[in-house]
């Protein structure tokens, strides 16, 4: 079945990307922030186009792509993220480059890549989609090409990205060798049909795949590119990296693991649990020592990835119900995390646009000079730490609760402990903002209205998810049940 109407929203997104490229080509002197607004409008159109798909019956494209509620969830998420990032970039990019069309176009393309990763039900498509996202990000990270850091970040990112892609591909090839197919359904059936026993090719293959996608979501020890890339990238792209890139990675992981690999859960769940443990611990411990805000956020987001991986481990350890509730909670957490991160970056961008300082100490006295931004930053950081009223509290608690099983209690406990460690460095940021007076000459200022409004809106979102997550939770629940519907549990009898 080749139903080309399934991806109308993505055509829109890519079309918008091309249009923006064309506009700048035709009219090179256009104010760069107009391009940002155009991108946001495009993303908005994309989002609106995605809405009719909510609750629609699953549409299958040749067995390689699937539009169901899960895909739609990531569609809306991607469109939202792109829209927010475009708005974030408006002021930031305005005077930093001579051409911005590619920047905004690539944002849209990257978002499309993310959606396709979520929609893929087949390894080749998943891989290509992943590369689509990655390529866009390589360029975006290095977009400030005369900025040594941006360039260095981009170099590291692409070299390691290529390296890990090779790993991923080798893993895929092994799985393909064992199962003779690359479609998730086929893999599940083939793995199930295997006559028991541990197959080294499967184990090594899965581990290589884990390395590949682990790199994408920056799970330790595959995370090392992340802090450097985050630090070097333009600020909005840092936000994009820590939201879209991770969300996409988890979309792929969820599809792949529930759709295919869960059949062989015994062979990877311990590794995923270990990966989760290492990731959250390393991320949080190293974050303590950071002085640069972007790096801090990078390590903190690595910690967050560790928490999210707990849900994946839980899927490996649990039954179909656990998988459904854990994926649902994970999707909820992703929304909360995304909203918090975007809010944080909206505020940081506003701050950076004024001071050009991205060190933690640069926030000194922000509560005096710009209390609203300080409040938004506080809210986001507290949301990361899982403190009440903010999204992180509800989502993290529900995520861990959904992931709890007797065998994984230790991991959940470790996650909780890590989340406590993380509070320390969030408080160190708070300390700069609230406990100290601003440096000499810093006076009160108003953030750009656009960023202020964006930050305020996202703050409301963070609060809403934190206080009353029911509606969002219901949505993620639908996405999760769509995911579970096409998962391996539907195909083969599992213990």
């Amino acid at each position, binding site marked *: 079945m080749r139903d080309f109407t399934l991806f109308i929203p993505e055509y829109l997104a890519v079309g918008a990307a091309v249009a923006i*490229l064309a506009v700048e080509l035709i009219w090179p002197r256009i104010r760069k922030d107009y391009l940002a607004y155009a991108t946001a409008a495009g993303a908005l159109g994309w989002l609106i186009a995605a809405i009719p798909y909510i609750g629609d019956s699953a549409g299958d494209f040749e067995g390689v792509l699937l539009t169901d509620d899960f895909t739609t969830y990531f569609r809306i998420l991607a469109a939202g993220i792109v829209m927010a990032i475009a708005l974030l970039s408006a002021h930031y990019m305005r005077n930093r480059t001579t051409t911005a069309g590619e920047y905004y176009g*690539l944002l849209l393309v990257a978002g499309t890549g993310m959606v396709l990763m979520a929609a893929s039900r087949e390894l080749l*498509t998943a891989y290509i989609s992943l590369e689509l996202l990655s*390529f*866009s990000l390589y360029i975006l990270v290095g977009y400030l090409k005369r900025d040594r850091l941006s360039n260095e970040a981009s170099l590291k990112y692409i070299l390691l990205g290529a390296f890990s892609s090779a790993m991923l591909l080798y893993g895929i090839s092994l799985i393909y060798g064992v199962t003779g197919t690359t479609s998730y359904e086929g893999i599940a059936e083939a793995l199930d049909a295997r006559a028991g026993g541990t*197959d*080294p090719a499967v184990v090594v293959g899965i581990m290589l795949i884990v390395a590949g996608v682990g790199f994408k979501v920056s799970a330790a020890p595959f995370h090392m590119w992340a802090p450097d890339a985050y630090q070097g990238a333009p600020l909005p792209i840092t936000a994009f990296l820590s939201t879209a890139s991770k969300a996409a990675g988890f979309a792929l992981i969820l599809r792949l693991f529930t759709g295919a690999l869960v059949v062989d859960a015994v062979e990877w769940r311990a590794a995923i649990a270990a990966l989760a443990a290492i990731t959250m611990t390393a991320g949080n411990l190293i974050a303590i020592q950071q002085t640069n805000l972007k790096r801090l956020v990078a390590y903190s987001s690595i910690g967050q990835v560790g928490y999210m991986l707990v849900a994946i481990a839980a899927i490996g350890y649990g039954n179909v119900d656990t998988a459904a509730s854990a994926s649902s909670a994970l999707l909820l957490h992703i929304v909360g995390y995304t909203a918090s991160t975007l809010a944080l970056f909206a505020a940081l961008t506003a701050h950076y646009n004024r001071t050009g300082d991205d060190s933690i100490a640069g926030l000194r006295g922000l509560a005096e000079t710009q209390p609203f931004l300080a409040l938004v930053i506080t809210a986001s950081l507290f949301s990361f730490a899982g403190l009440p009223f903010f999204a992180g509290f509800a989502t993290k608690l529900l995520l861990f609760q959904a992931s709890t099983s007797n065998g994984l209690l230790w991991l959940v406990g470790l996650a909780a402990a890590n989340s406590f460690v993380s509070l320390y460095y969030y408080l160190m940021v708070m300390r700069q903002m609230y406990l100290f007076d601003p440096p000499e000459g810093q006076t009160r200022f108003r953030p750009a209205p656009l960023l202020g409004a964006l930050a305020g809106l996202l703050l409301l979102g963070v609060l809403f998810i934190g206080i009353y997550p029911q509606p969002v939770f219901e949505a993620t629940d639908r996405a999760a049940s769509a995911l579970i519907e096409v998962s391996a549990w539907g195909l083969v009898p599992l213990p």
Partner: protein
Amino acid sequence: MTTEILWWIFAVAIVAVSAGVVFARTVIHSAIFLILSLAGVGAMYLFLTIEFIALVQFLIYGGAVTVLILLALMLTRMGVAGRPEPTTGVQAPFGALVAAGLMATLIGVAVATAWPGDPGGNAVAVSIKTIGEQMFQHYGAPFMITAALLLVAFIGAIVIARQEDDD
């Protein structure tokens, strides 16, 4: 039998030139070894009787990629002088260790796995028609995505490498 002997000769040669890529003292040598290695693997595809992919290998890798690499080497002015590359990194020995471990693992996997089908038999010739049908019908979607991907890479390379006024 001849095929086998020939195969072994090629296999050894590929390993040798591939080792050359990573061990060569100068970058330009590595590049040349890489061309040879890629060509060798292309030959392997011929052994597998899949000429289409061998062609792709020769064209894209042997042609486009290596030219690109050579170009880059010239642009970064290292190959031209033939200046010896500053030694390998300090972690080379550890890298060797890890690579050896990995190699052992991969070879182990290759040997120990009970592959389905008939791995002991001869490779089956795959018709270009099958490939074409599969690629444009079943794999139509990734094909289109790849189109976008190549466009992105293209634009990206231009954006990144483009010389601007103040460069």
